[in-house]
């Protein structure tokens, strides 16, 4: 009898909702551009482009940080197969690997500025998982996946 499939769901932690971010950004714009607008109305217009630039930067920073919440991955490991579902917004990509022939690789970066990459691969195909995790989290996930998937030509018993 097949063991129950194991599901690992990974998603970045985001404490700010999109609505919260919009409200927050709107409020900050109101304050900062309000000050700069008042200055501009007094003839001190050079304050305005700096405030505008700053708000653009804040918007970018929030967007980059919030983009995390649109990413999630579900790794389902059953006796025969490994199913990796990667979701980015409404887009969902599914990749299936045969568990017996799959392996987990943690690729260390060539440059120290870059993060490591965790991939599941078999038969020349590969799928990166946990690219939004921190190094520590990624190593933890790699260790867990390796225990469940094993090396090539191995199928460890699923507890």
């Amino acid at each position: 009898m097949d063991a129950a499939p194991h599901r690992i769901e990974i998603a970045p932690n985001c404490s700010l909702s999109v609505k919260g971010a919009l409200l927050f950004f709107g409020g900050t714009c109101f304050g900062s551009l309000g000050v700069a607008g008042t200055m501009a109305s007094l003839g001190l217009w050079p304050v305005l482009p700096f405030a505008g630039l700053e708000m653009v930067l804040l918007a970018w920073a929030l967007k980059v940080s919030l983009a995390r919440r649109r990413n999630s991955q579900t790794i389902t490991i059953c006796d025969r197969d490994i199913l990796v579902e990667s979701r980015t917004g409404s887009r969902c990509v599914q990749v299936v690997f045969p568990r017996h022939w799959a392996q987990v690789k943690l690729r260390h970066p060539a440059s120290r500025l870059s993060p490591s990459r965790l991939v599941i691969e078999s038969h020349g195909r590969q799928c990166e998982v946990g690219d939004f995790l921190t190094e520590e989290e990624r190593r933890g996930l790699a260790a867990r996946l390796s225990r469940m998937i094993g090396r090539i030509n191995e199928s460890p018993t699923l507890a």
Partner: protein
Amino acid sequence: MAEHAHAPAAVVHEHEEHDHKPHGWKRWVYATNHKDIGTMYLVFSGLMFLIGGSFAMVIRAELFKPGMQLVDPQLFNSMTTMHALFMIFGAVMPAWTGLANWLIPMQIGAPDMALPRLNNMSFWILPFAFTLLFCTLFVPGGAPAGGWTMYAPLFVQTGDAFPMTIFAIHMMGASSILGAINVIVTIMNMRAKGMGLLRMPLFVWTWLITAFLLIAAMPVLAGAVTMLLTDHYFGTTFFAATGGGDPIMFQHIFWFFGHPEVYILILPAFGVVSEIIPTFSRKPLFGYETMVYATASIGFLSFIVWAHHMFVTGIPLAGQLFFMLSTMLIAVPTGVKVFNWTATMYKGSLSFEPPMLFALGFLFMFTIGGFSGLMLALVPADYEYHGTYFVVAHFHYVLVPGAVFAIMGAVYYWLPKWCGNMYDMRLAKWHFWLSAIFVNVLFFPQHFLGLAGMPRRIPDYPVQFTDWNMVSSLGGFAFGLSQFLFPYIIWKCIRSGERATGRVWESAHGLEWELPSPAPYHSWGEPPSEALIARGAAH
């Protein structure tokens, strides 16, 4: 992450396994780890303290006795200007950003700052900015000598240093804004589950409000100095009366930035003191929520008090009344804070380790600075005090035993967490007592000098001011010398010392104390549990 494990397993590694901690110079140049960047900010800040402090020593040496001793008036004024710029933008602000980098991710259960590469950039702008500013000492016309307030039209007459100074200030501002945006996004979006806003440590709260002040105030400074530049080089007359401009308007916009800037320097200090006092009183902080609201009130009020710096420019009576009353209003939330810190200590089981000594020093001496600030808020009194050494004494009481003592207290509080060793308590206490005594010898007599009418920013003075100037200078030299203990204690602690436990101080609360000492290079890889957060947030 829903689940993961750390048990060793047969992961296929494509390169040699390493500890993911880069080594050598690249670790620092390419740093994206919040702890590395925090360390760089703190080291940079220490260096700026040294340079800014040496400028102060030149000032105090010149003022040791009447007459011209060491430097000409131009260089003297350059020293006062450079001292202020280095201390404000180079020492105190980067020290707070360094502490924010080290502590905020650990305190909110985040693995790092939200935007690590932006974090790297915001730090590395600073050395270039201050090298440029320092180089102005060697250009024709000398370093800027118009004061850190850069009042037009005086400042526009600066020699070759003028565009260099403006560019350096732009870079400092850009660095501050990048740092502030990173702090805001980190606090808003990277808090661990269960770390609600009203569970955040007060250091995080005060930094969040500080970051908002930076965002609102910095574009005003950038705009102001850009207008100086265009007035000088492009024929505009924003601040030149000859072309229909208004020099007083520069003062308005400078102080619209400048007064919130004062709170940018001091609000994180409130956060630090709010962390230290409960730990060494062995009691929860009295009135956590009121502290948050008081900080927010101070932040808001800081934007509607700027003209108290300009009472003598002849602003209308209604304006004088408004700015006098709004300034005095700041005493209310500040008083709430002082009351809450005192109430936290009341019936507490107090002990006086170095962080607590610095926090108490802050409490007493910042309050002295606050009271002299109240005196300056009174329009009729300000007419007498304005431009005198009384003002110098006031803001130095707020910034040295205020902000600087809080920074030192913070370093003594969290140093064992950072490097894993306890430091030499006896030496650290010596550091406190020498600093506390000599900072008063240095600055308290300046109240008397100001009340007796000695103007600020003068290299020579009438003989009647000699005695207190000598006392003040001696205090300054002793204070400066005693600061060499600080890097020695830190260096000694990094190299050796009794191993620190995870909690370090028995009554410390907060997520950072749940981590081992020294804090791991990557902390909170696994987010802290809600139970842990609840335990840490025992306000």
